[in-house]
């Protein structure tokens, strides 16, 4: 049995003409263990972000699955973003790279 190695991934994704999404992920074997999303964007209701972070747990780090999940989140919560659109969350997560030492 192979036990996956946990890696830390991060991205600062600036939405063109919009706001900044800062993603910090723990990933194991191609799946998200945990996700922290921060930044200077707007999202109402504000407490919905924690729900998105929770929904991302154990999701494969692949575009198709992430798109489906983010769409489900926005439909289910009627959340309204400003400075970000749903696809920006997907792009930010997919752009996350290995944390550099010392960063």
């Amino acid at each position: 049995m192979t036990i996956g190695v946990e890696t830390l991934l991060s991205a600062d994704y600036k939405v063109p003409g919009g706001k900044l999404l800062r993603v910090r992920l723990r990933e194991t074997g191609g799946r998200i263990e945990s996700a922290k999303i921060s930044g200077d964007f707007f999202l109402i209701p504000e407490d919905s972000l924690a729900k998105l972070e929770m929904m991302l747990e154990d999701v494969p780090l692949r575009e198709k699955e992430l798109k489906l999940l983010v769409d489900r989140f926005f439909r289910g919560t009627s959340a309204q973003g400003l400075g970000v659109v749903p696809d920006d969350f997907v792009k930010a997560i997919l752009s996350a790279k290995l944390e550099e030492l010392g960063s």
Partner: protein
Amino acid sequence: METWRLVDVEYRDDPFMNMSVEEAIPRAVGEGKAPGTVRFWHNSNTIVLGCFQSASLEVNFVACKETGTTVVRRFTGGGAVYHDAGNLNYAISLRKGHPLVPDADLQFVFQRLSQGAVEGLRGLGVNAEFQPINDIQVEGKKVSGAAGSIRWGSVFHHGCILVASDLSILGRVLNVPQVKLADRHVASVQKRVTTIRDELGKDVTTRDVRDGIVQGIEKSYGVRLEEGPLTKSELSTAKELLDTKYSKSAWNLEK
């Protein structure tokens, strides 16, 4: 003509209480316990983080210690701002569905509810204009940022205006990510912001700007502002919010 309440309640040396009052007012307005309200206030040296921001990523805590800068988180999104006595904060709370902002669309709220401040600044001789998403700019430089929300049955909008702030401290205490500066083609945060004092080329007080914005709001929205206190209920809510939320590291620093 509709009358809104004008509140000048502030706690300059207690940014946590200032933020508690900031939340207590829209809660009261949304519940119908207070009329539409405009509040003006100041903080001493303080970083105010947006509710989605990471304190550890955004704040230079060493510089904060050196400059005596406090860190507090607000309940609205958007970016971190630096407050000092040369920075004027204003907040507008209206009941949800108010004819001025009938649609629950945050971009429209920012545009509509920045207009009073824009008019006020123009009246002082500053060539201010609203710049989407949430800025007021003068000649391409940011002089005010806004944030807001639609919750608790209210529409809430607040902004901070750099009247005569110390921009050198602002540049030290905030870690502005390079990716953000690069997107705006500027080398530092200081180069993309300005103050009302610098734009007018003369001394101007936050009181002058406050008075100008009062006129700008009355003119823009066809309302009359009447000075009034916070209610006992609002103060009680604010104190509860202070104890349970805004005085807590868990709220201010742990995102």
